[in-house]
């Protein structure tokens, strides 16, 4: 019998980061299951976690550095690859300046310190141009809530009497959130789901508001109007802890249930019922907003309107409501204070000042234009780590053209992706089972350290890569730690948690106890120190001060040539954005792309289930098999297609020039299209 060993760490097949037992025999991982002692997932897992075994030992895994040559990609030694990349970066820096060098961080490497390593590296090099997948995910919600409440709170599901899931499908997107919601329901909480589709979570909803895509703001303002009209709001909280209530109340007056019905398609009676349900549960109302409302031209103001509900209900930072998180006060790797580079013109910061101002993010879609035009200055080199914009950013053809035209394009990943195929160098990246890093579960205010369980000879972890490159570029002083373990030790230095203690607690360590009603003693993290229904900061930047509603373009000015509206990017349980299409058994479960449509639309088009249909937008066209849903699962005139498929890439259809004006997020969930039977 080979010796069996068990190690606990966190899964990073998605951003839920569930605690796992990793079973090894003779140093090889043979199985993974859930680790029961961590309060986050209590031993439960989704089936992606076990597939990490397949991922790390996948026959297509990149294990050697590759260099593009006239004969295609060829393996080269790691040290040579790093030498050549450094040499070419220095030449580009000399010719075009440091800011012509950029970084693009993806989702496959994990957040926390590894994102900050990339930010640190590019700043140390003298460039402000840090791009990431957050140009299209997460930031939008963060901005919506930060503008109103000072940060993005976490829903206190288990103590709530009403859970509102707004534009999210946790069973597929954040599987572990599902058990929290269901525990709340078992304790008697109502579940409200706001989604144009009958998503998996909507199957258990007490009330499902199937609104038209992009009309979220009208519904939120309608709820605000009802709560105020029926005196179902927290007068005392509003009076003491908010600014702009009078203006918001005045603005919301126009959103009667009848007007909301006309805008959203949700019946006026349902709007009243929703308002009654949340008012009856207040202040124990926990609201989670997903990615759905972000990808619209009025996305942030729609999310702001939803965020206002927390304060109106008095649910903000109360037990069973939405709790403000206290951060982990560790050392940070970013250099924004030490080396401010805003004067160099971070790409997109002029047009989307909130994006740069709040998150120091450059705008990827503007970045693509800049690579192609050289305006306002050239971007000639990019190191992209585990992102796949050639599938996941809007307007794929343009993305491919831009990335393929760089003087130097370096991609780090586990597998050869459509993005990596455009690179000059492809470097093998380390999976989450090959890295040490600290993760925070904000809901429990806990940190957990992951373990380096495996090591492949030419596969560098993120820190080793940035360290080795920095030392070749003359910025080694910013990367003095010998390895990621020593770096983690430094990150923990100002805290009362040592590296050894973190390592000894795979169930995580609570870094500060959970407190509610912090507003009684502390100001909110907003300019006024209060909850801001109305934002002077936004007004000064030329945006509306109130979370104003604008109907989506497909409703306001329908284009007769493109009569259908396409939602993109609904999640599938077993796939994570463009990842895992190469796990064989996942293909058994979901073999390929499909577009969901209503049975009446299918009948009118003469389409049978599985027939190929052509979808065309003003940007491009794709052919994809039709999946005819039941009449209650999707609205007529509405289609849904999941992203990340090479075989039928939905981003051939999406616009890279229609944005939410505050966040810069692209319109991806209400794309006007036409449909043909082929």
């Amino acid at each position, binding site marked *: 019998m080979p010796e069996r060993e068990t190690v606990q760490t966190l899964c990073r097949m998605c951003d839920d980061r569930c605690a796992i037992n990793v079973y090894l025999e003779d140093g090889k991982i043979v199985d993974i299951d859930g680790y029961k002692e961590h309060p986050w997932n209590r031993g439960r897992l989704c089936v992606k976690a076990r597939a990490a075994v397949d991922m790390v030992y996948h026959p297509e895994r990149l294990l050697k550095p590759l260099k593009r040559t006239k004969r295609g990609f060829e393996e080269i030694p790691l040290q040579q690859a790093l030498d050549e990349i450094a040499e070419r970066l220095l030449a580009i820096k000399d010719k075009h300046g440091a800011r012509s060098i950029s970084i693009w961080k993806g989702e496959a490497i994990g957040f926390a310190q590894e994102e900050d390593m990339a930010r640190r590296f590019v700043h140390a090099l003298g460039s402000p141009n840090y791009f990431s997948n957050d140009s299209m995910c997460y930031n939008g919600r963060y901005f919506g809530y930060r503008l109103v409440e000072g940060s993005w709170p976490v829903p206190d599901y288990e103590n709530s009497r009403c859970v509102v899931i707004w534009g999210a499908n946790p069973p597929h997107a954040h599987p572990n959130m599902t058990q929290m919601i269901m525990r709340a329901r078992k304790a008697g909480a109502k579940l409200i789901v706001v989604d144009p589709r009958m998503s998996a979570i909507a199957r258990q909803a007490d009330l499902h508001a199937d609104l038209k895509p992009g009309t979220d703001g009208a519904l939120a303002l309608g709820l605000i109007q009802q709560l105020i009209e029926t005196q179902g709001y927290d007068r005392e909280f509003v009076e003491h802890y908010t600014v702009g209530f009078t203006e918001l109340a005045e603005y919301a007056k126009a959103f009667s249930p009848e007007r909301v019905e006309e805008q959203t398609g949700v019946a006026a009676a349902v709007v009243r019922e929703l308002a009654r349900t949340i008012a009856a549960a207040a202040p124990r109302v926990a609201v989670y907003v997903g990615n759905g409302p972000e990808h619209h031209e009025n996305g942030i103001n729609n999310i702001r309107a939803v965020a206002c509900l927390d304060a109106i209900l008095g649910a903000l930072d109360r037990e069973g409501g939405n709790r403000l998180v206290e951060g982990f006060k560790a050392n940070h790797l970013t250099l924004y204070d030490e080396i401010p580079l805003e004067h160099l013109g971070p790409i997109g910061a002029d047009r989307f000042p909130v994006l740069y101002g709040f998150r120091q993010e450059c705008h990827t879609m503007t970045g693509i234009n800049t690579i192609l035009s050289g305006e306002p200055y050239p971007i000639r080199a990019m190191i992209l780590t585990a992102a796949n914009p050639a599938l996941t950013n809007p307007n794929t053809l343009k993305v491919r053209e831009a990335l393929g035209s760089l003087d130097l394009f370096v991609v780090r990943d586990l597998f050869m992706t459509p993005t990596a195929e455009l690179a000059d160098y492809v470097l093998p990246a380390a999976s989450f089972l090959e890295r040490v890093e600290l993760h925070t579960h904000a809901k429990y205010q806990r940190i957990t350290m992951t373990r380096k369980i495996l090591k492949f000879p030419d596969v560098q972890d993120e820190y080793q890569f940035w360290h080795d490159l920095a030392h070749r570029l003359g910025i080694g002083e910013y990367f003095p730690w010998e390895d990621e373990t020593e770096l983690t030790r430094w990150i923990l230095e100002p805290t009362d948690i040592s590296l050894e203690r973190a390592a000894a607690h795979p169930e995580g360590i609570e870094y500060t106890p959970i407190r509610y009603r912090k507003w009684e003693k502390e100001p909110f993290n907003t300019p006024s120190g209060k909850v801001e229904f109305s934002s002077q900061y936004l007004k000064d930047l030329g945006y509306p001060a109130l979370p104003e509603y604008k109907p989506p373009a497909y409703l306001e000015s329908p284009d007769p040539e493109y009569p259908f509206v396409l939602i993109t990017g609904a999640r599938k349980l077993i796939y994570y954005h463009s990842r895992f299409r190469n796990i064989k058994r996942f293909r058994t*479960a979901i073999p390929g792309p499909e577009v969901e449509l209503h049975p009446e639309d299918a009948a009118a088009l003469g389409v049978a289930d599985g027939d190929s249909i052509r979808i065309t937008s003003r940007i491009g066209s794709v052919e994809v098999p039709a999946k005819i849903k039941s009449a209650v699962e999707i609205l007529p005139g509405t289609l849904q297609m999941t992203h990340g498929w090479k075989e039928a890439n939905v981003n051939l259809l999406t616009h890279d020039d229609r944005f939410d004006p505050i966040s810069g997020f692209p319109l991806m969930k209400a794309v006007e299209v036409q449909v043909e039977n082929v």
Partner: protein
Amino acid sequence: MRIVEVDPTSCVACRNCEYACAFKQTGDFDIKDSNIRVNFYPEERACIPWTCVHCGEGWCMEVCPAGAILRNPETGAVEIDANHCAGCKMCLLACPSGSIHFDKVELVSKKCDLCGGDPACVKFCTSGALQFVEEEEAYSFRRESLDNKLKRLFGLNKRGS
């Protein structure tokens, strides 16, 4: 003994349990190989997970002419010994809940064996609709749910605001 308790009011038909079971049986994700099945009825918005409850008097055991269905003394699970199964399908007929299916490749009947006492379907259930519980405690969540209603009705829940 412990059984897999199913709660249709928590299930979202995500199919994690079916994938996990199929994987345990075959190494693949074909849900036809799963010994737990989730039926989803969109019109009614109903999600119903179901698997073998390992009946006290297993009719499948009684009817099996090959004597291939036996109770595992350790876990209490009613198990089919594939080496003795004749493939007659009588157990499929006998099972009152349709919890046995026929494997047309191996030509034997298949059913839940509780994974030897650590059922994969429960470990990979992300909603909590599946729990592995002592049979005498099964469905106690029904009582707890009533308790919660009574607590609220009589204002007995005094914690917090």
